C-alpha cells in the first residue's frame, strides 16, 4: 500500500452553504515528503486535511494515489493515518490497546499485532505507560500515543491536524523535535496542518500557505521565508512592518519607494511595479535597526525578549514601526531607524 510514487490533489474543492471553504487545491505530494498546510484559522487548511482523510466529501475535484482514485473511498479504506488536535484517544482503552486498535481492525495475526504494537510503543518511548488509560497520561504523552496509533499502521500518508496546539510552549518544542525525528526515521509521507509559521518552517519540506480557501503560495521554507509572493504571505511569515508606499524609482529588480512624507526606502520588487504605483513595503522587525542615520522615530513600547529588545516606535507622520534593538531605549526617546536594502520587499498593493 505504501509503495507509491506520489499523491495528487486535483482541484480539490469544498463548499459549505454556498461558500467555498476550500477553492481548488492542486498539489502533488512526493513519497516521503513532509508538507505543511499553513494559514490563519478559517483559511481552509483543516477542511483540506479532512477532505484528504475522507472525513469530508469533496464538492469537486479528485484525489489520486498514483493511478488509483481515492476520493470515492470511505476514510477507513484509504489507508491513511491521522493525528487529531485533541488527540482523540479511545478513553476506555489502554495505551497498548489504543495503538493496537488499527492493526486489529485489519485482522492481522495476533503475533504481528503484538510485535508491531511493542515496536510503536518503544518508538514513542512509552514502555512504562503501556497499560495506563489515556486519562492517566500527561498531554505530551497522550500526543505520543496518538502519533504511535497513526504510524503503527505504516500508512501511505500521515495527516496531522494541529497536533501541538494543545501543549504548553516547552512541550511544544520538544514534541516538534520528536515529530521531526520520527519523520526522519520512518520516512512517512506527512501532511501537517498548523497556524504557527515557526512550526511549519522548522518541520516541513514544503509549505502550502492558504487564505480564505485559496492557495497563496507553495514553496520550500527558504522560499517562503525570504521571498513571500504577496503581502498576505509576508504578513503571515513575520513581516510585521507593512508600510503603504509609492514607487519613486525603478532599477530592474531594485525599486525605491517613499510615502511622500519623508520616509524613503529601497528594496527588492516582487512583481513588476512601475513608477507611481501604490505598493506595500514589507520589513521584518529583525531587519530594522537603530542606526546613526535614517528615519527618526519616537519609542513607545519596549519589550524584553532575551538577547534582544522588541521596540515599537512611531514616526513623525504617525507610521508605527516594529524593530529590534540591542541596547535599551526608553519610551519617549527619539531614535533613528535603518533598514538593510536587500531585506526590504516591495509588494503590489493588492487590496485583495
Amino acid at each position, binding site marked *: 500500500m505504501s509503495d507509491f510514487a*506520489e499523491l495528487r490533489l*486535483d*482541484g480539490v474543492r469544498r463548499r459549505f452553504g454556498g461558500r467555498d471553504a476550500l477553492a481548488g487545491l*492542486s498539489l*502533488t505530494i512526493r513519497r516521503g515528503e513532509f508538507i505543511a498546510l499553513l494559514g490563519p484559522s478559517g483559511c481552509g487548511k483543516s477542511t483540506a486535511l479532512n477532505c484528504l482523510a475522507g472525513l469530508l*466529501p469533496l*464538492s469537486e475535484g*479528485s484525489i489520486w494515489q498514483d493511478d488509483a482514485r481515492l476520493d*470515492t473511498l470511505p476514510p477507513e479504506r484509504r489507508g491513511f493515518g491521522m493525528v487529531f488536535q485533541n488527540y482523540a484517544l479511545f478513553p476506555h482503552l489502554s495505551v497498548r490497546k489504543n495503538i493496537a486498535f488499527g492493526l486489529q481492525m485489519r485482522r492481522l495475526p495476533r503475533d504481528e499485532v503484538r510485535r508491531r504494537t511493542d515496536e510503536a510503543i518503544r518508538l514513542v518511548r512509552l514502555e512504562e505507560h503501556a497499560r495506563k488509560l489515556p486519562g492517566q497520561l500527561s498531554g505530551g504523552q497522550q500526543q505520543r500515543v496518538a502519533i504511535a496509533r497513526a504510524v503503527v499502521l505504516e500508512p501511505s500518508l500521515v495527516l496531522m491536524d494541529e497536533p501541538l496546539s494543545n501543549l504548553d510552549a516547552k512541550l511544544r518544542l520538544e514534541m516538534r523535535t520528536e515529530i521531526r525525528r520520527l519523520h526522519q526515521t520512518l520516512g512517512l509521507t506527512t501532511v501537517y496542518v498548523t497556524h504557527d509559521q515557526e512550526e511549519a518552517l522548522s518541520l516541513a519540506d514544503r509549505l502550502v500557505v492558504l487564505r480564505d480557501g485559496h492557495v497563496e503560495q507553495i514553496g520550500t521554507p527558504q522560499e517562503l521565508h525570504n521571498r513571500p509572493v504577496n503581502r498576505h504571505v509576508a504578513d503571515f511569515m513575520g513581516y510585521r512592518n507593512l508600510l503603504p508606499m509609492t514607487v519613486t524609482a525603478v532599477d530592474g529588480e531594485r525599486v525605491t519607494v517613499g510615502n511622500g512624507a519623508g520616509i524613503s526606502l529601497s528594496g527588492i520588487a516582487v512583481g513588476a511595479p512601475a513608477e507611481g504605483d501604490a505598493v506595500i513595503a514589507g520589513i521584518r522587525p529583525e531587519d530594522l535597526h537603530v542606526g546613526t542615520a535614517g528615519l527618526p522615530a519616537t519609542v513607545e513600547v519596549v519589550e524584553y525578549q532575551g538577547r534582544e529588545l522588541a521596540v515599537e516606535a512611531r514616526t513623525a507622520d504617525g507610521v508605527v514601526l516594529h524593530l529590534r534593538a540591542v541596547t535599551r531605549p526608553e519610551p519617549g526617546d527619539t531614535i533613528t531607524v535603518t533598514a538593510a536594502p536587500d531585506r526590504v520587499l516591495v509588494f503590489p498593493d493588492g487590496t485583495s
Partner: protein
Amino acid sequence: MTPRPIETVPPPARLAWRHRLAERGIDRHLALLVPAMACVLALFVYPFAYGIGLSFQPEQGGVFGAYRAFFADAYQRDTLGTTLGLALPAALLNVAASVPIAYRMRGRFRGKRLLTTILVVPITLGTVLTAEGLLNYLGPAGWFNRALTSLGLIDAPLRLTNNYTGVFLSLVITGFPFAFLLILSYLSGIDPTLERAAATLGARPWQRFRRITLPLLAPGLATTFCLTFVLAFSVFPSAILVGDPAGETRVISIAAYHAAWEVYDYPLGSAIAVIMGVAELVVVGVVLGLRSLLYTGSTGGKG
C-alpha cells in the same frame, strides 16, 4: 514532475445524488432514527390524530357536538377551572418556595446528597402512595391533627382530606421536590464566580441575587414551572383518592376518564382529552413565550 492530464470522469449520477443529500446531512445513518420515529408515530401521533378525529364524530350534535356538550354542561365545563385552580397555584407555590431554598443550598454542605436523595423519594413513590399516606396522616385521627390538638393550637380536628386541601397538599408533596431539584441543578449551572465578580464591584447579597443570579436563572424557572404545571395539571389518582371527585376536585382528567371509560362516550372522552391538551399547551406556550424574551445564553457554568 509534470502533472498528468486530468481525468474528468464525472461521478455516476446516483453517487452525485447521494453526495448532495449527504451534504445536507441525509445519509443512511438516519435509518437509526426510524424505529423510534415509527414508535412515536404509531403510538403517539396516530392515536392522537385518531382521538381528534373521533372527537369530531359524536353520535349527536354535529361536528362540534362533543365540544358543545362539554362547554354547555356547567358540571363538565367547570372541571377546566377546577383543574387550573389546582394546578396553577400548586405549580407557582412549588417554584416560588424552591427558589430561596435552592439558592441557600446551592453551595456544598454536608448531607446535601442525603437531602436530595430524600427529596427524590416522594417523586418516585408517585401520587397513589402519597394519597394513601395523606389519608392516614392528615385524617381526623391522623398524626398531624393529633399533634396540633396536643399542642393546643386547635380544638377540633381540621378537615384536610377528601377536599381541595388534600389534593393541593398531594401536589405540593410530589411537586415541590421536583421543582427544587430542577432549580438546584439550574443554579449549579451558573458560574459562582459571576456573583463573586459582582461582589468585588460592590453589589450587596440581595443585589447580587436580584441583578445577576435571578436573570440567569429565570429561563430555568420558566422551564421548571412548565414541567411542574404539567405534573399538577394531569392530577388524576390523588384527585379521586384524597379529593372530592364528585365535587370541588372534579378535575378535567376525571371528566375525560368518566366520559370515555364509564359512559363509553368515546367522542366526548376524546374531546375532553383534546381540550385538556390544548389548555395545557396554551399555558406552557404562554410561559415559554415569555421565557423567549429572557436572556437564554450561556450561564458560564458547567450546565
